[in-house]
């Protein structure tokens, strides 16, 4: 119980953001047409790579070699998620766009 109170107290600002971001997320995405579901999912997936920032901070302050190694692996994975995700989404959306100019 203590832990929960501590958690709620220590993170009240973060929780504020979480609640509002949830509403914002639902509002933003609820109206996406099903034609765009795959690119949306893949583009959102790339955004979940924001953990890249955490990985940079972690690796950037690590001193022990184990920490540097784990941090680098995490950074590698996060970057793969970000780059791969954005590039593949762009590739999909490029296909959707082409038809417009052709007609």
């Amino acid at each position, binding site marked *: 119980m203590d*832990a929960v109170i*501590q*958690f*709620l107290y*220590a993170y009240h*600002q*973060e929780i504020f*953001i979480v609640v509002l*971001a*949830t509403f914002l*997320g*639902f509002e*933003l*995405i609820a109206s*996406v*047409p*099903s034609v*765009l*579901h795959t*690119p*949306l*999912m*893949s*583009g*959102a*997936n*790339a*955004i*979940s790579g*924001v953990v890249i*920032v*955490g990985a*940079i*901070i972690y*690796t*950037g*302050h*690590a001193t022990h070699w184990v920490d*540097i190694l*784990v*941090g*680098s692996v*995490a*950074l*590698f*994975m*996060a970057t*793969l*998620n970000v780059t*791969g995700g*954005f590039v*593949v*989404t762009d*590739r*999909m*959306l490029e296909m959707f*766009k082409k*038809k*417009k100019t052709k*007609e």
Partner: protein
Amino acid sequence: MNEIFHLQQNIEFTTAKTILEYSYLLSAVFFVVGLKLQNKPDTARRGNLWAAAGMFLASLMTILLQTDDQGHGIRNLGYIFLSIGAASVIGALIARKVKMTAMPQLVSFFNATGGLASALISFMGFFETSLSQKGTILVSLLGVLVGAVAFSGSMIAYGKLEGKVGDIRSGIMRYVNMLLLLISVAFIVFLMMVTTHSVTVTWLMFGFLFIALLYGVLFVMPIGGADMPVVISLLNAFTGIAAAFTGFLYANYMMILGGILVGAAGTILTIVMCNAMNRSLLNVIVGAFGGSSGVQGSEGGVIKEIQPSDAAVLMAYSSKVTVVPGYGLAVSQAQHTVHELEKLLESKGVTVKYAIHPVAGRMPGHMNVLLAEADVDYSKLVEMDDINPEMEQTDVVVVIGANDVVNPAAVNVPGSPIYGMPIIRADQSKNIIVMKRGMGKGYAGIENPLFFLDQTRMLFGNAKDSLQKLIEEVKSL
């Protein structure tokens, strides 16, 4: 003198921190605008670039300006640039080279990497946190759990979509999974009560990580083919939530916002997919389909085959043809062939449309990307609710590699496992041509009465070959 120097140093320090924090705010705005633009096909590509720009800005500013409590900037730049550089090249190459038909696998794979990164950062964060800071400890444990499940679950989903991992369908699985979830919770509760870091605690953390990974594997194992769109959306949401937990660890609002936006996107898609199958999320996860209940008995009837030449005549002299694509189209990679047939028929004055069921294929919107790759105009892709009222005026419906999404048992047979699932009403059209490899049942293992209707003709064979034959026949008319 000394004091002034101190103040100046402080101001410099503060300036850097301020610029960094406002860069994060800007990045967050980029994410929001980017997602907003992804609402429309015309602006979606720009939206994706906005989000990418936000990510680039946040990463760059972190490397340049981030400092810890002692004012130390980011070190180990060699390792950082090496990791980022290598992953960027590899990621871009994979994303460029992989075939469009392998898109569901690819999305799962990238989802897995993000989950792993979050799990690792949360895992290490645990050891850097004093055990008296219970809030932070809880966040790191949840980050490990959700990140690890997203990682191993996505890897299994990847393996299934590649055809390398089979399904485990067993009633025991639900109890095993329930047990694993309970063990995970027990680990969290116990680790929250520990007061000092020790070797035992380290081992416990590894045990916890292992259980979380195992849970991810076993959670996806029983879930089969047609339910993949639900699982992929759900795992997508998990990765976002895991990233948000790491944002808690670093008190970084941008990471929280980004993660939660993804969590919301994944959740919405999960709900949409579940609704499209008229099933609850729990029902999908427990895997209630497997093996059919014998409710529908011997619907039976006579199967009537059709030859490509007759099918070609039927289609070419229709005024309205609707194609219902399914996973079979993706498997035989017939998207280009079907588009060719569409153009040919259109040149003969036939109106051709595609009826897209929300859960056709293996991920949300799968058929749309597949047909977009083949240059099919997206205005020809019609959603289920819009096409159904037109079905009675449709001359020919061509079902290619789809089964359950056109099964009228969902409407007519109250005892059927798929009863209540919204379907494309192919059964209401004047003629139906079903392209199938054989008489095998669909994923749900349910007899499809559509195949036995008077107006239905079966065209057996690989979808691509059948379509090619049709094209030749139509050309020679």
